[in-house]
């Protein structure tokens, strides 16, 4: 999820404040596919990512594109409005109750000495690594990926050499949304969904990408790892109710000593 946020900001330079709500859309899609077709969320993540890709592409091409060169507060208001619309549509469609799915491995765990590891989280982590690797490969080895990176590096240069920046931006937003779609499907194997959970995950994604470096894909992965470890260790060694405090403390330290994030690049 954080990877999607980072990809979108890194290229399009728009902070997606509807990120968490897009994730809950994906979670509800996973729920529907599981209910109707008994499709495991780790399988349904592929079609869901595709659907979210189309959604993200159309959202960027149709709605966000005119706001690209407008002040940041306009972009902020636009995406907050999108988030509110998504939440309310979900409330109308699914109601406020928590809904979950029960796969064959929902209650499984692996015992490694004194450690007990949740099987669903291990599978989701594996799927997340595959998605991240595919994204890295796309940006590194395909012509379209290279063109998107060129847009991110030098907007005017990309225009000068004739790249269709508008289309590449839509493609990038679609890819970011696809990441969110995959994340939502994977998360459905781990937690229940309600329309209200989006903002908490948007905030978490922000903390992760700011810690790792906004716009840096390896930074998003590193940030996720660091925030997760900080919360878990803080919870076990001190008090669980204060685990978020440790994550935010890490964020404050990063902002103080390395404002661009651990793997982020300094603004020119």
């Amino acid at each position, binding site marked *: 999820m954080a990877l999607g946020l980072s990809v979108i900001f890194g290229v399009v330079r728009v902070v997606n404040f509807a990120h968490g709500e897009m994730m809950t859309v994906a979670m509800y899609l996973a729920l529907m596919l599981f209910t109707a077709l008994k499709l495991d969320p780790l399988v349904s993540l592929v079609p869901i990512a595709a659907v979210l890709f189309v959604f993200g592409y159309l959202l960027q091409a149709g709605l966000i594109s005119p706001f690209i060169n407008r002040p940041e507060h306009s972009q902020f208001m636009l995406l907050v409005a999108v988030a509110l619309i998504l939440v309310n549509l979900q409330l109308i469609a699914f109601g406020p*109750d928590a809904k979950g799915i029960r796969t064959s491995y929902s*209650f499984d765990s692996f015992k490694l000495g004194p450690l007990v590891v949740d099987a669903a989280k291990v599978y989701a982590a594996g799927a997340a690594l595959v998605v991240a690797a595919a994204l890295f490969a796309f940006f590194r080895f395909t012509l379209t990926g290279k063109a998107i990176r060129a847009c991110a590096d030098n907007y005017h240069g990309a225009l000068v050499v004739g790249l269709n920046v508008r289309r590449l931006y839509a493609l990038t937003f679609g890819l970011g949304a696809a990441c969110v779609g995959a994340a939502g499907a994977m998360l459905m194997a781990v937690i229940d969904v309600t329309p209200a959970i989006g903002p908490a995950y948007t905030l978490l994604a922000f903390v992760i990408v700011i810690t790792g470096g906004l716009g840096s894909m390896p930074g998003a992965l590193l940030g996720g790892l660091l925030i997760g470890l900080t919360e878990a260790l803080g*919870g076990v060694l001190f008090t669980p109710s204060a685990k978020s405090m440790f994550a935010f403390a890490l964020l404050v330290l990063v902002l103080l000593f390395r404002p661009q994030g651990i793997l982020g690049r300094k603004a020119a």
Partner: protein
Amino acid sequence: MDRRQFNKAAAAAGLATTLSPAIVRAQARRLKVGVLLPRSGVQAGIGQDCHRALEVGSRILADLGLPGLDIMNGDTESNVDVGRARAERLISEGAQLLVGAFDSGQTTAIAQVAEQRGVPLVINIAAAPPITEQGYKFVFRNFPTAPMILGDAFANQLEVFKATGVSPKTAVFMHVNDTFGVAMQKGFSGVMQKFPAIPYKVVDTIAYDPAARDLSVEVTKARASGAEALVMVSRLNDAILITRELVKQRWAPSAILSMGPGWYEDQYLKTLGKLGDGPISFVPWYDPNKKLAKALEAAHVKAHPEINLNTNHIYTFEALLVAADAFKRAGSADPKALADAIRATNITDNVSTGPGIQFDAKGQNDKLRNSAIQNRGGKLVVVAPASASNAKPELPVRAYDKR
């Protein structure tokens, strides 16, 4: 104006004068009750559960010969500030009495509004003691406070341990970190000292976020304490999350003792199936032998056959009962007359466990008693006190992998 016109006008005026008190009396036959519940947000499931009592309750009140209530619904969205704003709005829209609001934090805010505006509030569910310790004149609570719940919980635990022969030596206490959970946590050790026969010692206390989506760290820490029993003060969603983690982390405490909502609720039982069997909840409940309890249960089963009658229905219904009974005796919707009538309430034909509904000088029903109920085969059985039980308790809790 000629003579005929004058006579018509005079007749119309006379008719209006004659009928107007009747119209006023007719208006006063129904009470506008603003019911504030968390119908959306984190506590939405419980708020909607409380709402079911409104649908079923009105028919029973009519059967009892009590006046009708016009229910005005308000959604607190599980949020204190929203609860306060909705209370203000309901009063502005004509609510003559408020009922609500399940959560102690939201109820505290609503109580302040009710007192400021001079509109009676009958609390259905909220256990934080300070609500009725403020010297309020318009706030009444027919629900036990946290110390009352705890006191009865320990008394019923002793009964359960004696009946089963299971006496855990250590326990970990986990509580939700909201107004209710913190009130229970503060009262826990103090009340426990009054019950020296309680066999277990609390080896760790773990607070957690009420809106948490993942409680693996919390359960890991509880499991690492090596405690034999798990003592819980939770809500619905977190009770489900904790049970899932218990299964995943392969930890089956010998006893799961809950002193709050969550563990006995239908969504818990339905979501977890056989994994939900075993926990014992020490909760404000109903006396199945009471006439009105039987009537409420029958009406509830008819309306909602798939849902067990529970605390949410019982106390929301009783809040309406208090309102209708007071309105009948007051004969007026005047707020002060209503408040005086509520203060003088003496309902012995009620639903909840205990001798009935009466309020002390602080507006608290201090006569309420709790029960111990256990999840068995997707149903709830009352296991203590013996005078109101319909089954014997079963401990230790069966290991999750052997179900």
